């Protein structure tokens, strides 16, 4: 029984990582109705930028803030430069551009910053391991940060006119334009915010998994699964989905099929759930008109 509790706690700790990245995916989906497959790579790049700033001697929280701003700008620039020219192209072309972006940022990060594994500092430190060493102070702290970001995202979309305009621009660009929403800038803003949230996720994840150019490669799939499981249009659902994926995967690995197939089984379960509830556990059911 103790083993089970430990697996669940470890799963929640890992799930926090997925939840953070899932939030970034929800952000970009809310703003553009796309899932950016290069989101993970962009977050890794942001984390490397943060490390460079910290190594230059800047205090952690200042570097944290600076990285968020830089990442926001990168996100906006990417949208303006790379997505704008293909905005009227078919969706599949957009996915093609995402793949190109993934290749450029993934390979470029290694080229610029090197490939070795690097330690990334954490602002939350304690000498005393918590819960029998299964959870570090950092993991608790980063979960709090994730929840904080979640609250901000929720408030932003529900209670600010900018958030409303952004959702409108993504949901129905033509009508939004008619009521005076500057759709182009809304998309760019969405990319910027998603990149900023991705940067936060990267800085929270890196102290746990260690930083290298492929840090997010595996995480993105889990985060994507978590976001869809919870409901891609529901930030809180995505966070819960992220935690659920972490726990589910651990339990599958420890008690069901062994570690070799734990990802496979976890994904199969998630897809099974989605077949029953196609818009996720907490997603809104959308009906379409002919």
């Amino acid at each position: 029984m103790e083993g089970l509790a430990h697996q669940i706690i470890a799963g929640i700790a890992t799930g926090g990582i997925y939840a953070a990245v899932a939030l970034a995916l929800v952000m970009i989906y809310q703003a553009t109705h796309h899932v950016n497959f290069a989101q993970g790579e962009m977050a890794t790049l942001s984390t490397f930028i943060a490390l460079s700033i910290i190594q230059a001697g800047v205090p952690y929280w200042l570097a944290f803030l600076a990285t968020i701003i830089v990442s926001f700008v990168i996100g906006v620039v990417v949208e303006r430069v790379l997505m704008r020219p293909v905005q009227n192209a078919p969706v599949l072309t957009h996915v093609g551009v995402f793949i190109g972006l993934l290749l450029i940022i993934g390979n470029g990060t290694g080229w610029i910053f090197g490939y070795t594994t690097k330690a990334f500092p954490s602002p939350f430190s304690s000498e005393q391991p918590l819960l029998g060493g299964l959870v570090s102070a950092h993991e608790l702290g980063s979960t709090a940060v994730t929840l904080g970001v979640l609250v901000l995202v929720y408030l932003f979309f529900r209670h600010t006119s900018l958030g409303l305009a952004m959702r409108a621009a993504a949901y129905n660009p033509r009508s939004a334009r008619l009521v005076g929403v500057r759709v182009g800038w809304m998309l760019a803003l969405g990319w910027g915010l998603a990149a900023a949230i991705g940067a936060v996720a990267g800085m929270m994840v890196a102290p746990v998994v260690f930083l290298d150019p492929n840090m997010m490669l595996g995480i993105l799939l889990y985060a994507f699964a978590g976001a869809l499981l919870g409901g891609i249009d529901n930030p809180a659902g995505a966070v819960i989905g992220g935690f659920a994926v972490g726990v589910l995967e651990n339990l599958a690995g420890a008690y069901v099929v062994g570690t070799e197939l734990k990802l496979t089984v976890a994904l199969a379960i998630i897809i099974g759930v989605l077949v029953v509830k196609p818009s996720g556990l907490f997603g809104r059911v959308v009906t379409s008109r002919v």
Partner: protein
Amino acid sequence: MTTSRRALLAATAATLATPRIAPAQQAPGVTANEIRIGSTNALSGPASSYSVISRALTAVFKRQNDQGGIAGRQINFIVYDDGYQPPRTLEQTRRLVEQDRVAFLFNQLGTPTNSAIHRYVNQRKIPHLFLATGADKWANPKEYPWTIGWQPSYRTEAQIYAKHILEQKPDAKIALLYQNDDFGKDYVNGVRDVLGPRFDAMVKLASHEATDPTIDSQIVSLQSTGADALICGIIPRFAAQAIRRVHDIGWRPLMFMTNVSVSGAVVMQPAGPEKGIGLITSDYRKDQSDPAWANDPGMNEWRDFMRRYIPDGELGDNNYTYAYGVASTMLQVLRQCGNDFSRENVMRQATNIKPLDVATLLPGVKVQTQPNNYNVIRQMQLQRWDGRSWVRFGGVIEGANV
């Protein structure tokens, strides 16, 4: 029917073997002022952290060229990207052999990738030298006389750990954490070699995928089996995670780490140097971050090379010391060739290296080959992390054949 087909095949094979544009001299890939050498590496994709090896090899050859080359010839080292995908390795290797007409192949990266070309290079009798992989199947001179590895095999390393455990704790319960690929599986095989029928009773296994974000779940599972020894066949990022997590949950097994992941700068410092105290590995290289080698002539030679030829390289990355060692071996073979760079002679020299000291290898660890023994580096030494650096103990271990 069959005979005529054989003859036809032989004829086509002969036309394939003789290049359509016949060069002036007999040895392919060699002219009066050039030796062409080919290689593949993962310059892109998830395995591209190894691309620094090619970069370092190119730099070593450049230094050699600056110093006059080999027998008056400049080395032209051609590297192509295979993205660690076996079909592309075959494509790029065929490009090197059939289009660029290289003299031979050197230090291609990866086990599955080299497997894809193993038969091709041996059928064509092209030297396939000093591969960048620790699988043990490359030392098979009877069936594959044209292929030779370099580093000690992972399997041998795992055998050393298993034997050490049996000496220390004959009744140990062993936990084995490995990456679910050819690299990690070799540790399972090595431990199985030593334990034989007792393997299933003594060993608990947990694997992870290279794409897994963390390995916490596996460590929790292994700890709950009550194991008192832990062998890890995992890459650096997971090694740092494992060392830290095992320490944090208060588990104190006799812990062994593959020598792939024991760099002071890349693994031990990120994990927390005090958390790895007591960790054991078995290595053949000097760790460049170890203060013991601060004034070592061999390592100074390497540092001087890095400063002049790869000034922006990360000094903590032990792919650079690996590359320096394997390139030194290659240069030794080329020097031994005299003026005959035919494929036959290159292979003959590569398999007749007298015990040789290499700058970046531990004292007592030699590079050597014989025509019937393709294990180039056969020696390793156990070492233990004391919180600051690796401390060697016991003698140099030669082989571990059970």
